[in-house]
């Protein structure tokens, strides 16, 4: 039997008809006429006939040529997915017509073309894919896209956005968008997030951002700077938060009115350029009490290591020898803080001063994850130790804030 076959099954003598869906944990899953699925022993299921294939009725999509051309690059994730109502399987909508059919109001904001460099669950994202993604975005902008929307699973969206931010100098908005609740549910945040991201992709912005719900209400979306954003909740719609910085824009819903922050980078401020080398042999290590110093041996062959230390950027003195060993082996080590908020300062306590003396670079107020992505990128750009150190300490794409504003 295959999915869709009409079957009959007996339940305590009573005969019931249904559609065969799949097998699960040794049971045959049958969809009854009422819509309910039930799992019963396969032995009780009997094949009747193939089901009739009802062709999918598709309305024609006409795009308004007067609107700005926006590129949608889909990489997977729930934002543009749809569910097979019979099996529950989730498939990805990737062509413009499909997307507009799902969210018709998009057609009033722009005309869309789509690219799909790959489709993955975002937890399977790899640095090499970031490079592919950055190249795809670069090509789209080069070919005239007025803005780029990247649909992405939320798990690693902040990492990817940050990576693209370092690799790409963009004159147009590059907006990452995802959804926290699957697109198949009427309450999904996908439509609002997609509409807001389209609105901001055609707005006066010239940098890489992440556009997601600003609150748990369907009231506005926030666009976060790619290098300052972090997924701060496993499931809430407003999981994405700018850390130590304000969002660069907000978009009201359903009005789609955009309000841009004072320090947002405007459209055409930068020339399009791509620097797409990433050094993958970089790691991120979160320190904890009792950490075995031997772990550093694992990283000693790495080109770069970001440590998320405690407090102002500390680790146990037990690790100091390993740190020195790594550095003498040519590993660049960046200190960030597992506190996430606030600035690393290794000049206050002895432990910190020892780290500085050993050659550890203070990561200022960079998020540990952003520091990792940046380190991969910096090590892809240069081998010169002084240049590496200079670039890591310099604010390149908003990842470092020279001042720690109060109230964020």
């Amino acid at each position, binding site marked *: 039997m295959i999915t869709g076959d009409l079957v009959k099954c007996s339940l305590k003598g009573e005969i019931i008809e249904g559609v065969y869906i799949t097998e*699960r944990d040794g*049971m045959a899953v049958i969809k009854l006429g009422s*819509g309910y*699925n039930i799992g019963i022993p396969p032995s009780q299921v009997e094949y009747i006939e193939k089901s009739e294939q009802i062709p*999918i009725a598709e309305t024609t999509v006409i795009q308004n040529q007067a609107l700005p051309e926006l590129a949608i690059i889909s990489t997977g994730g729930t934002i543009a997915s749809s569910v097979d*109502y*019979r099996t529950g399987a989730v498939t990805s909508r990737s062509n413009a017509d499909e997307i507009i059919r799902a969210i018709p109001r998009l057609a009033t904001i722009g005309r869309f073309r789509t690219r799909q460099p790959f489709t993955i669950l975002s937890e399977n994202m790899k640095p090499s894919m970031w490079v592919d993604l950055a190249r795809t975005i670069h090509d789209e902008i080069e070919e005239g896209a007025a803005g780029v929307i990247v649909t992405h699973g939320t798990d690693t969206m902040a990492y990817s956005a940050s990576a693209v931010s370092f690799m790409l100098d963009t004159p147009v908005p590059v907006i990452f968008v995802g959804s926290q*609740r699957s697109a*198949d549910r*009427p309450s999904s945040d996908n439509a609002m997030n997609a509409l807001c991201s389209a609105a901001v992709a055609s707005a006066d912005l010239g940098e890489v951002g992440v556009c997601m719900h600003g609150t748990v209400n369907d009231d506005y979306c926030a666009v976060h700077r790619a290098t300052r954003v972090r997924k701060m909740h496993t499931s809430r719609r407003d999981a994405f938060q700018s850390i130590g910085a304000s969002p660069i824009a907000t978009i009201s819903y359903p009005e789609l009115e955009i309000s841009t922050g004072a320090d947002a980078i405007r459209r055409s401020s930068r020339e399009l350029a791509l620097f797409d080398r990433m050094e993958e042999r970089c790691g991120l290590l979160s320190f904890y009490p009792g950490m075995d110093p031997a772990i550093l041996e694992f990283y000693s062959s790495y080109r770069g290591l970001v440590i998320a230390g405690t407090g102002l950027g500390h680790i146990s003195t037990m690790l100091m020898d390993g740190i020195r060993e790594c550095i003498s082996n040519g590993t660049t080590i960046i200190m960030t803080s597992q506190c996430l908020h606030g600035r690393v300062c290794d000049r206050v306590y002895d432990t910190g001063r020892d780290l500085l003396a050993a050659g550890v670079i203070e990561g200022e107020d960079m998020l540990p994850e952003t520091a990792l992505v940046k380190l991969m990128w910096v090590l892809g750009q240069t081998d010169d130790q002084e240049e590496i150190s200079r670039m890591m300490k310099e604010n390149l794409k908003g990842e470092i804030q020279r001042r720690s504003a109060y109230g964020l």
Partner: protein
Amino acid sequence: MDFKLLGLKAGIEIHQQLDTKEKLFCRCPTQLRNVDERSKEIQRYLRATVSEMGTIDRAAEEEMKQMRLFRYYAYDTTCLVENDDEPPTPMNEEALEIALTIAKLLSMSPINQVHIMRKMVIDGSNTSGFQRTALIAMNGIIGDTCRIESLCLEEEAAQRVTDETFSLDRLGIPLVEITTAPCMHTPEEVKEVAGYIGMILRSTGRVKRGLGTIRQDVNISIREGARIEIKGVQELDLIPEVVSREVQRQVNLLAIRDELISRGAKVPDEGLDVTDLFRETKSKVLRKSPCIIAATLKGFGGIIGREIQPGRRLGSEMSDYAKKCGVGGIFHTDELPAYGVTEEEVHALRERSAAGDGDCVVIVSGTREQAICAIRQVFKRATMAFEGVPEETRKMLPEGSSAYMRPLPGAARMYPETDVLPIGITTEMMEEITLPELLTERAARFTEELGIDEALARQIAYSDRLPLFERAVEAGIKPSLAARTLLSTMRELSRDGVDCSGIPDDTILDLLSRVAEGTVVKEGLPDILRTLAGGAALDAAVTSVGPTFSVTDLEEIVERVVQERGDFIRERGKAALGPVMGVVMKEVRGRIDGQIVADVLKRSIEKVL
């Protein structure tokens, strides 16, 4: 009406909330709250999603005609799951066990592997836009002829506070939905079956009691009619009326069908803007309306205004359809002139619409968008009139008639809940379930073991206070005292407007124990309960009704009264007991048992004689 002749087939769906500690897919308590206690609000839109078939479920589509912002009240007893901001937990095992117990009581076959489904509901009552539901068991038996089709375990929807505002406290409370086959053929039969299932449910002792915790939906069709689901029948006694009115409606609709066909009636394709006709009208609604659209329904004259059910006309049905577009309703020439619309205006309207004598002109008003949407809905319903009875979900109106809610939902709105893993139901699980004593059995036992008469025993067994009654009897209180207090006394108080439902069981038990101990007399119970219902503590209530009254106290009064009336007593002899008793009771009523008074007085009179 001869229901059998009409081919009445009726089935019922009973929704019963379960009395679990936690909700079905989260760990919040199943506790209802006062809206004033809300701590947060959230606001969301819902949108129907397209199924793989490229279609939107017709019920969902109906709800989507307007973009509505729903507001939800959250409490410290609700969580992110109700907010649709956290995946559900696995299904509550306690709820599943209760559902399986019920299934076993109904001799149903459990599903080997239960799959949790999402049933799309976008009227706002579910934050997720769907209700989680699972088919737990099938094929039960009830009585000799009737079959239970299915038992589902579902989550309760959020309670509507106002139009677009819902309260999240109720959302997620476990609910069993028991659906019978359409195996009933008279209105009375429907009531009986509903009553029996209700008894089965309450026999578990693990279902919620009280207003709104059980709801009956009735499915009704007659020959050539269609399946109609009438929602929200809360009172058992109303069921027969609802059923017969629906039969009446279907009969009338079928007659209308025949008449329309024979008249060659016709539904137009388009409406006509007649806004200008009503610029100066006395009808406030029309005068203020930015757009008024009229349409002539050829051959519908007199039919739209025809009553099909007490208080309901074909026009009411059209009006219900139109309201989905946000308009207030419709006007039609079968009922005009009226509502401030004059004879002249009707004339102008008919003229403009080129309506003949046998035609009916319908008008709708609102914004242009609303009006266009509404007139199309009218056309839709008018077209359906040629088919007879459209399949619909309807809601019960107070007297037993019904109004249109939405189309019957199709299977398209049901798809798997991927966040919850399926659950295997094993034979061992079913075998481990110990069945509770049925309430009918219990009533019989009360009669037999406690010597309570059959009617009272049945009342007690079915009452909300059953657990309290059983505790009281266990605590040594006389069954008759307990039964009388919990049933008659409280019912009488209730007729006086005193609501005893808020008095805690423990307090009542304590009070009954005091009566048993003699520190409170049973005559004082009504007054004490009345005081307790007002919020007083037990000690305060007892004291307020009167100080405890000893036999010595009584003897003093009796002695005084007997002395004062010495002559009378001596004159009448023992026959004086009655009249003198009245005098004494005037002073001590409610403070001491009448039997004791009689005893003491009797002795006292005997001394005098």
